[in-house]
Structure formats: structure tokens, C-alpha cells
């Protein structure tokens, strides 16, 4: 049996002082795309935050293994260098730090960590141009400060661009589809699909089924009140689309405490 790319074992986690995740189990193998769905406030972003090591989110029990190694022992930057990428639900604006300078620094930090040669400014520019065309992002956004003055859609494209450049082993996308128009949605989906490969895994967090029409998931999980209450194939997403999340609450209410 191969070691899973990502494994969560009975993960309990707090956001600040508040318990949010209440025993999450999840196994994701390289080559798989999993979708994580669930109503607002169910803990999807908390799960994502825990995976990328965001301060003020803490795992109180359980374990998370990345390629069989203890992920929780690693600082956020080391997780990134080991190959985890998070597309944030709300990317921050960083005035004064140019996108291109930041991304080359990040790429080279990752490459150094993985024992690959660094990319010089010239090659980086070429690489960047190629990926920007892929997400249909105007080139001047690269010279601008990170996300400063970007529209919501541009920010999301920028997240996908970063993902394409950094070529992670595990990509976690936190509602990258929310609030996007059809064009932007297509770009995001194409970006994700272009990265699909037998070595990579993806966890696509979404509130809506529509993204999953273009990014076909291997497994769909439903998170409710900090627990994965159902897992299944893509038909589960369609079922949710049809029935809404209402039945979950009933199911949760009926479940023994």
C-alpha cells in the first residue's frame, strides 16, 4: 500500500479558543482530487488554516501526516517548501511588495529546499508570462504590489497563478470559485485541471457544485459542524445541489451527541 499524500486522523482543532473541528478523518492519495463541501461556518476554512499552519488556529488532538511525516511539527514556510499550497479564500493585499519579486523569492525558496537550482530573473519572467497567459491575467499585474487594488476575481486568478508557478504536491483551494464570473471560473478550473497529475493531490473546498462540473472530483466529502458526515463520489455533490444542506442539519440534529 502506498503512503497517502495527506492523512488526517481524528483531528480536533480550535479557531482561537473556540473548538471548530471535532474529529476529522480524511485520506487523500497522490493523483486524487477531493472536494470538501459544507454549509457556511461548518469549518472548511478552519481545516484549510490548520493544513497551512495559520497562527491562532491550533490542533488540540489527532494528527496530520503529509507523505507520512508529521505536518504539524513544521512551520508554515517549511510546509510550503515541502509542497503544500493554499489558495486563500481571502488573499491579503501587501502594498509595496511587488508580485514578481515576491513570487521569484518564493519559487527559489521552494526550489532550494527541494535541491533544485534557482531560477534567474530572466527565466522567471518567461515562466511567469506563460502561466499568466494560462490564467488570462494582464502582465502589468506582475509588477504591481501583491493584490493591491486587485478585484476579487484578479485576486483569485493571482492565487491560481501562484499555484501554477509553485507546482505544489498538494494544492488546497479554499472557495477559489466564490464570487467569480463564468470566465474567471473557467480559468480557475483550467488552471487546476492543468496541474492534475499522478503525483499531485488536490483538496478543492467549495460551497457550490458548479465548479465540480469542470473539476471532476474523485471523492466528495461533506463537512458539517466540524465533522465529515458523508463521503462519496461526485454524485454526492449533485445530490447536495438538489437537496441543499438542510438535510444535514436534520441529520446532525438526529445524531446522538
Amino acid at each position, binding site marked *: 500500500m502506498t503512503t497517502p499524500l495527506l492523512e488526517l486522523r481524528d483531528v480536533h482543532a480550535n479557531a482561537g479558543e473556540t473548538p471548530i473541528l471535532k474529529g476529522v478523518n480524511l485520506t487523500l492519495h497522490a493523483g486524487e482530487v477531493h472536494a470538501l463541501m459544507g454549509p457556511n461556518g461548518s469549518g472548511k476554512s478552519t481545516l484549510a488554516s490548520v493544513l497551512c499552519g495559520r497562527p491562532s488556529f491550533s490542533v488540540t488532538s489527532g494528527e496530520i501526516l503529509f507523505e507520512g511525516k508529521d505536518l504539524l511539527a513544521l512551520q*508554515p514556510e517549511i510546509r510550503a517548501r515541502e509542497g503544500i499550497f493554499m489558495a486563500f479564500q481571502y488573499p491579503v493585499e*501587501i502594498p*509595496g511588495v511587488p508580485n514578481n519579486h515576491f513570487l521569484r523569492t*518564493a519559487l527559489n525558496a521552494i526550489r532550494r*529546499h527541494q535541491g533544485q537550482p534557482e531560477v534567474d530573473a530572466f527565466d522567471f519572467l518567461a515562466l511567469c508570462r506563460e502561466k499568466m497567459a494560462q490564467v488570462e491575467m494582464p502582465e502589468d499585474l506582475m509588477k504591481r504590489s501583491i493584490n493591491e487594488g486587485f478585484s476579487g476575481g484578479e485576486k483569485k486568478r493571482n492565487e491560481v497563478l501562484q499555484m501554477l508557478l*509553485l507546482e505544489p504536491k498538494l494544492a488546497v483551494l479554499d472557495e477559489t470559485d466564490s464570487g467569480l464570473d463564468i470566465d474567471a471560473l473557467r480559468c480557475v478550473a483550467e488552471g487546476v485541471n492543468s496541474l492534475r497529475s499522478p503525483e499531485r493531490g488536490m483538496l478543492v473546498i467549495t460551497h457550490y457544485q458548479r465548479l465540480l462540473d469542470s473539476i471532476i472530483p474523485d471523492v466528495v466529502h461533506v463537512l458539517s459542524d466540524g465533522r465529515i458526515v458523508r463521503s462519496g463520489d461526485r454524485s454526492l455533490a449533485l445530490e447536495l445541489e438538489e437537496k441543499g444542506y438542510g438535510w444535514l442539519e436534520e441529520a446532525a440534529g438526529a445524531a446522538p451527541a
Partner: protein
Amino acid sequence: MSTLGFREAFEALVPDAAAPAWLGDLRREAFQHFEAAGFPTRRQEAWRYTNVSAIAETTFELGSDAGEDASVTRAVNGAAFGETAATLVFVDGRFAPDLSRTLPEVATSLSVSWAGGSTGRPGPLGELVDPKLHPFAALNTAFLCDAARIEVPQNVTLEKPIHLIFVATPGARRVHHPRILVGARASSRATVVADFVSASPEVSFCNAVTEIEVGPGANLDFVLCQRETSPTFHVSNLAARVDRDARLATHTLCLGGNLVRNDLQVRLVAEGAECRMNGLYLGTDRERIDNYTEVCHEAPHGTSAELYKGILAGSSHGVFRGRVIVAPDAQKTDARQQNPNLLLGAGAEVNSRPQLEIRADDVKCSHGSTVGRLDEEAIFYLRSRGVGTEHARTMLGQAFAAEIVDAVPDQGLRDALLALITARLWTTGEAS
């Protein structure tokens, strides 16, 4: 606090053989002012935040540039940033011809003009900084034995900057009194960089005075770059006079020194005069950096825009006081002042005080000061992409400083400054 230590040195100073007679009188008079005033104390309003007793209690020694010194040469070479119109090096306050490249008539030293037989008292010398008001300026004049002398003739544009480098010879408790005289004549355009560097890791005291005249329609950028690496007391007095439709931009970069005090006074004396005062102070450890600026709008339609940014790491302490005076007939004045600060260290501190004295009614004046910390969300975002914490903090510090660096007129100098700022931020990131 005693001024005695300086008397002996004052009497022992042997001026240049070719020095003109007026120099002795000027020096004696200045020394009397210094002795009469003594070192300032914190009881004086202008010195409330800065205690100079450490300077007063140390017996400093004037170095005597004893020929070639490898560490001086290394420090001077290290300060180079690219092509210049002239590079003038002053060691212990005296011109060092072997390390310099003058631009005759334009960028030279007083001692060189004396040797060439011109012994008149040059333009702004002693006219702009009042030794009665500034004991440190009086002390500088008392030890005047040479000066950098810049004269940009009418209608002349210098494409490349003039680089002035001031350094003391290695030795215990060195003092030097750099003096800079700049005359930018009508409709000229130039950039002058005054660079202060260290040649040894020992305690030293640099006491500089700069006098600048900007003639009608002229455009001058003046960069004051304090980048001493040794434990340094640095006191600087800069005074400028800006004439009709002229523009002066000062760039004050405080990137080194344990105790730094800068006084900068700009007078806009005729209609349409403009000044831009940029400053960046980057403190680490227990450094204290005190910037006092004063702009006097003396005529109508003057513009002043001031932006001083502070980055304070460790337990450093920054002080910014910005005084704006608008005279009764200086109508249509536009005066802006901003002082954003970034506190990096847990023990870091900043005092920011604007002081507006507006005696005209039809003016636009604004000021603002802020104190903030690094955005933790931004740091996390950078880290989540693989950038280390130290590197992330440095990037954000650079971003904060960028506005000031970007306004510096020479690309080579901008690159050098950025490297310097990066190096300083990097070490402070690890420390705090």
C-alpha cells in the same frame, strides 16, 4: 558638562599653511560661542528627547590624517555606488586628494582653493547656520580647517551626482567635523550626496554642518546618508536657503549610529520656492535617532512637502519633530508633513511632534503621524508561499521604506541604499 576637553584640542589645531587670515577669527569667535553655551541639556526644549551627556563626557581626539590607511581606503571604496561627476573624500575633516576626483571650479575643497591662491570667504560659509543657536555648529566652525565646496554655475546641469565621503581615521574616540558648502546658482541642476562612513569599529563622533544656497530657478537634490557602522555619535546641522522658483529636495537617511541628531532648517525666501524633505530612520538595538526639521515659508506661493518614515527595531528610540512656520505675508503656502512609523521591536519607541506656526490666513497646511506594527496577516501570506519569517519581515520593511528610497535620484545609489536597508532589516529581524 565640560567643554574643557575641546579647548586643548582647539588650541592645538594647526590650520593649513595657506589658510587665509579670516579663518582664525571665525574659528575663535565660534569657539567662544561654544564655550559660552556649553553642551545642550534636556532642560532645553530642543533637546528634550535627546541626552548628549555621553558626548560631553567623552574626551574625543581629532585624528590627523597620517597618510595612507588601508581601512580608510576600504571604507571609501565600499561607499562607491556608480559613476559620479566628482568624488571628494574628507578624512578627519581634511580633504584627501589621493582618494578623490575633483571637478575643478565645481566640486573641490576649501584647502584646494587656498592652495590655488583664492582666499576670499566663500558664499554661504557661516551665513546660514547660526553658531549662537547651535552649540554643535559652533564647535564645528571652531575646528574648521577644510570644507567640501560645491559651486554649480548658472544654467549648468550635472547629469551625475557629486559624491562626498566623510570618514575618520581609525583610533580610539575619534572626532571629526565635516563641513559642506553648496551653492547651486540660478537655473542649475545637480545632485549632491554626503556620505558618512566608518573605517573602524571604535566609538567616534561626527559633527557635521552643511550650508546650502539654491539660487533662482535652480533644482538641487541633497542626500545625507548616515551609514556609519561603528558606535557613532552623529550630530548634523543643515541649513538651506531656497530662492525664487527654485527647488530643494533633501533625503536624510539615518542608517547607522548610536546617537543621531539631525537638525535641518530650510528657508523658502522668495515666491514659488519649493522644498521636499524626505527622511528615513532605521534604528536597531538601543540606538536613538532624533530628527528635527524646520521649514520657514517667508514668501507667497511656497510649497513644502515633508515625509519622514521611521522603522524602529530592538529597543531603539526615534524622535521626529517637524516645525512649519508660515510668515504673515507667505500667502498661498502649501505645506504638508507626514511621519509614519513602523515599530518592529517590543522595546522600540517613537515620539512624533508636529509644530505648526501659521501667521498667514490663505494657506494649506496638513500634517499626520502614525505608529504601526507589521501586518501579521501579510507575514503569514508570504510564509505560506515558502518565504522565511525573517525574509518576510525584511520584505515588508523594505516595502515601507521604498517610497523614500525610490525618491533618491540615482539608480546606483538607490541600489546601494536598498542593500543597506535590507542588511539592517535582516539583522534586526533575527534579533527581535
